[in-house]
């Protein structure tokens, strides 16, 4: 007997609440139910048996929390607990009932909100899957974090061989606690190749109706519904639905096409019996679903049903400043590029962090994690290296685009299997070992070849986007229309979405913006779905918005008016003769500070700007802060304005090939176990303003990593931050390790719970009472 055979024969009935039955049997809140597998096997077996008698085809093992973190204090291993639980289920199941290995959330939040790393989560699930090899299927339930689910599903796929079911818990707003959307769950998990998906817990069956309806629109997989017995009474915590009412509630779900049923909190064998009875008079409904072309992050789905903008700026090609940021592992620089593009109107961001001499796979993971931590827009992973691509795909939260595969055999056979395994969409470039065909026909043929290979691997047609490649008009003028004809044919004859980087078109011509924008408009009219552009160029983003309006996508011009409706004609730039760089910094005006710096750079050497304008302005702000005339938010505003001025100088120095001058290196970190990083980030900006090279290790940093980095860079000063009493021991340990590996390195510490006395006690050289204090210390240590 297996799941598929059972599903072919009709509805599949899961079991009801285990916790509910155990609490009825006297389990206290906060007790460890998994231990009952050893202490009361007969109780567990009898619960399974009553569910089977009530009609369950599948019973869940009593292993909801049986992971190494939650079981640490039981004295039992994960293997022992899961084996015992499976034995109990088997003892009750007999021949006809399947045993599902039940896996609940780990109980710790993943990065970036929490401290659990994706790889650790994977390993925790791997251990459970391996311990549960005797089960008939794996069920991940009550999940709220899509990234955590991805870790579990990958572990189950790579280390197990049983069907995988996943149910997540949604709130009435159609999102989980972490903000995961229903569509994102469906797109991501169907892409990963799980066997059935659905919902459990959180709501009662009536509240789940619209949620299941939405889910049915987004997946072709069998849909699971395992609701609570109504909403809990706020005072008693009891669920209110009687079995008959619960059973009747299954009807609308079956009518929408759900085929797998069960109960969660508050449900008993009587509820399951009533549900089975309701379903016994119904037939499964065959759903016909066509899931649209779409990509997503956990929190946002982007449907490719009209032109959507892919932002191209996260790419070092031709940008010296970007290359420098990559070499220095300056993630903040990349994040800034992400934020600016999203604000300018990008729907998707291309991420290319390739550079010879860096570990691109590591950089891709760091960049993807960091960008997904601060924005919801889906990403396009852009690399030529398969290891970097897989590194990015592995930890990407949602369904990304892979950029790219081409018609060459080597590319097809390495990239497409990764696209399939991780459930991504893919950009196919119409070139092969012979280069880019001159004619539209040649490119169309390659597109077809790529599509055929993708389909053969089980990649959906909707997930293949073809790039017919833009050639430079100044060099191959006759090729412009070939690109557009190929694009139209791919769209019309193959029914595929199209993608195109347009900026190349104008290379070598004057008034590039005009040429590029005109070509963009032509391409949109020819059927372009995904223009890859610089969204920060307003005329380009504007052209896409105008096209959406004119092509009748933007109904009633709602989006267009939202962007331009309040626009007043730009007034001629006010003469700002009275504004100095110093004033701009004092007032915290970032863009003015940057503009004035750019103007000054035309006539003044960079170092003179730093020494005569920036540093005095910062000193003044610092002195006023100390005197209590200026407060922290104002000090930071001034520092941020100075930072934007420095960025202009840094870019200029980079472009001219000059070495940037550093006053010395400072390594900073928020200590292990602590994730409060605002204070540390403020210190970073101020130190950078004063010309120090700051190596920011981030938050929750391993004690050894700080010592190692300080030694590696021969840093004369290390700054450590902690905000909690519970993390002071790891600060002390870090100090010990730094002192052991670099005896000459000075250490300053800061954070709300620290005092000068305590800093001395744990071996720090300095106590920084605030960010200004940290700069003063740096100046005294590094002269």
């Amino acid at each position, binding site marked *: 007997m297996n799941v598929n055979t059972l599903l072919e024969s009709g509805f599949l009935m899961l079991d009801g609440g285990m916790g509910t039955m155990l609490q009825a049997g006297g389990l206290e809140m906060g007790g460890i139910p998994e231990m009952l597998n050893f202490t009361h096997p007969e109780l567990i077996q009898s619960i399974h048996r009553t569910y089977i008698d009530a009609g369950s085809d599948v019973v869940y093992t009593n292993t909801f929390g049986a992971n190494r973190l939650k079981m640490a204090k039981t004295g039992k291993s994960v293997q022992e607990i899961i084996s015992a639980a499976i034995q109990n289920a088997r003892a009750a199941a007999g021949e006809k009932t399947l045993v599902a290995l039940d896996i609940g959330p780990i109980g710790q939040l993943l990065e970036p909100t929490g401290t659990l790393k994706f790889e650790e989560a994977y390993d925790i699930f791997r251990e459970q899957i391996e311990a549960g090899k005797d089960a008939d299927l794996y069920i991940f339930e009550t999940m709220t974090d899509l990234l955590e689910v991805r870790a579990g599903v990958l572990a189950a796929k790579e280390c197990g061989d049983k069907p995988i079911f996943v149910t997540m818990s949604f709130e009435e707003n159609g999102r989980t606690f972490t903000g995961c959307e229903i569509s994102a769950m469906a797109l991501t998990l169907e892409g990963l190749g799980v066997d059935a998906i659905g919902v459990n817990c959180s709501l009662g069956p009536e509240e789940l109706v619209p949620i299941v309806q939405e889910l049915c629109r987004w997946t072709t997989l069998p849909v699971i519904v395992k609701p609570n017995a109504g909403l809990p009474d706020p005072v008693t*915590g009891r669920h209110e639905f009687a079995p008959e009412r619960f059973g009747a509630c299954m009807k609308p779900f079956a009518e929408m096409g759900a085929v797998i049923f069960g109960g969660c909190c508050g449900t008993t064998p009587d509820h399951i019996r009533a549900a089975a009875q309701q379903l016994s008079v119904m037939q499964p409904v065959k759903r016909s679903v066509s899931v649209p072309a779409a990509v997503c992050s956990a929190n946002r789905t982007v449907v490719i049903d009209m032109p959507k903008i892919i932002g191209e700026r996260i790419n070092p090609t031709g940008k010296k400043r970007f290359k420098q940021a990559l070499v220095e592992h300056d993630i903040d620089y990349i994040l800034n590029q992400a934020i600016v593009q999203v604000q300018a109107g990008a729907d998707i961001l291309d991420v290319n962090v390739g550079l010879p001499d860096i570990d691109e796979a590591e950089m891709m993971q760091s960049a993807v994690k960091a960008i997904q931590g601060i924005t919801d827009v889906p990403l396009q992973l852009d690399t030529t290296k398969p290891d970097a691509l897989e590194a990015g795909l592995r930890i990407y939260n949602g369904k990304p685009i892979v950029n790219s595969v081409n018609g060459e055999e080597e590319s097809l056979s390495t990239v497409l299997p990764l696209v399939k395994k991780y459930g991504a969409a893919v950009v196919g470039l119409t070139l092969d070992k012979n280069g880019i065909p001159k004619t539209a026909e040649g490119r169309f043929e390659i597109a077809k070849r790529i599509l055929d290979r993708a389909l053969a691997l089980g990649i959906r047609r909707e997930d293949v986007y073809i790039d017919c490649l833009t050639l430079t008009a100044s060099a191959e003028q006759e090729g412009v229309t070939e690109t557009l004809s190929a694009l139209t044919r791919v769209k019309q004859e193959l029914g595929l979405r199209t993608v195109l980087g347009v900026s190349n078109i104008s290379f070598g011509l004057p008034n590039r913006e005009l040429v590029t924008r005109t070509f963009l408009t032509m391409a949109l009219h020819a059927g372009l779905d995904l223009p890859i552009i610089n969204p920060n160029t307003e005329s380009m983003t504007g052209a896409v918005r105008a096209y959406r309006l004119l092509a009748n996508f933007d109904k009633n011009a709602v989006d267009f008016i939202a962007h331009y409706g309040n626009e007043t004609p730009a007034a001629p730039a006010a003469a700002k003769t009275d504004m100095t760089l110093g004033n701009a910094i004092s007032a915290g005006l970032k863009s003015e500070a940057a503009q004035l710096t750019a103007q000054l750079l035309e006539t003044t050497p960079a170092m003179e700007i730093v020494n005569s304008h920036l540093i005095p302005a910062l000193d003044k702000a610092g002195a006023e802060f100390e005197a209590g005339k200026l407060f922290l938010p104002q000090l930071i505003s001034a520092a941020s304005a100075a930072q934007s001025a420095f960025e202009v100088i840094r870019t200029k120095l980079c472009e001219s090939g000059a070495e940037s001058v550093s006053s010395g290196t400072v390594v900073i970190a928020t200590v292990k176990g602590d994730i409060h990083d605002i204070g540390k980030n403020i210190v970073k900006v101020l130190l950078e303003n004063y010309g120090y090279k700051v190596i920011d290790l981030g938050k929750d940093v391993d004690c050894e990593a700080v010592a190692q980095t300080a030694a590696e860079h021969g840093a004369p000063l290390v700054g450590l931050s902690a905000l909690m009493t519970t993390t002071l021991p790891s600060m002390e340990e870090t100090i010990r390790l730094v002192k052991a590996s670099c005896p000459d390195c000075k250490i300053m510490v800061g954070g*709300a719970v620290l005092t000068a006395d305590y800093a001395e006690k744990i071996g720090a050289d300095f106590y920084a009472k605030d960010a200004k204090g940290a700069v003063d210390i740096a100046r005294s240590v590094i002269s």
Partner: protein
Amino acid sequence: MIRLDSIDRRQALRYAGMRGDADTAISALAETCEKRLLSVISPRYIHRVYPLEFCENGIACKGSHLLLTGADIAAHLQGCSHAVLFCATLSQAADRAVRMAQAEDLTAGLLTDALASAAIEQVCDLAEAEILAGLPDFHATWRFSPGYGDLPLSLQGEFLDALDAQRKIGVCVSDSGLLLPRKSVTAIIGLSEKPIERHRKGCAACNLMNTCPYRAKGAHCK
């Protein structure tokens, strides 16, 4: 469950280090950050009333595994027969909003973080009022949280388990005793059938007493 229409910006600016009135630029930025934060957070709370049993080694919440230890919580719950355990959170969206604001502008990050701190306090006040309105027969103490006085942070895990808080509202605790999402609060309100003296929360119970910048100037945070 709980809707916030506005955040106490004055309090938030104080948390962010402003003294006196903020200038117009900072005020305007705070207002923008407030709007953004309010548009993304989904405040939630969960509570449960437990009968108390005063034992030799602490106060047991009967029907759970939670044992409240230390002299301060004993004093706080003196005369109480029951206690409300509750946990409130702004959800992960608040953590995300702070990260996004920081990546864009550090001042906005600082202000968003401070606004979120003010917001969770407001959520706790509203939750407390709602909970106590449902318990008209009891007299209540003020809210006491793990980490105050000598009530250890290490019992956050069992506290959350006694409420099934991870499953019900998505709140976890890290190894270092930190509640996550970050803007989350656990608290205990003592309940008594007889009138009790409702002490004000004072500095003695606060673990920042020795480093408090307000106290250094002879002032208070509330």
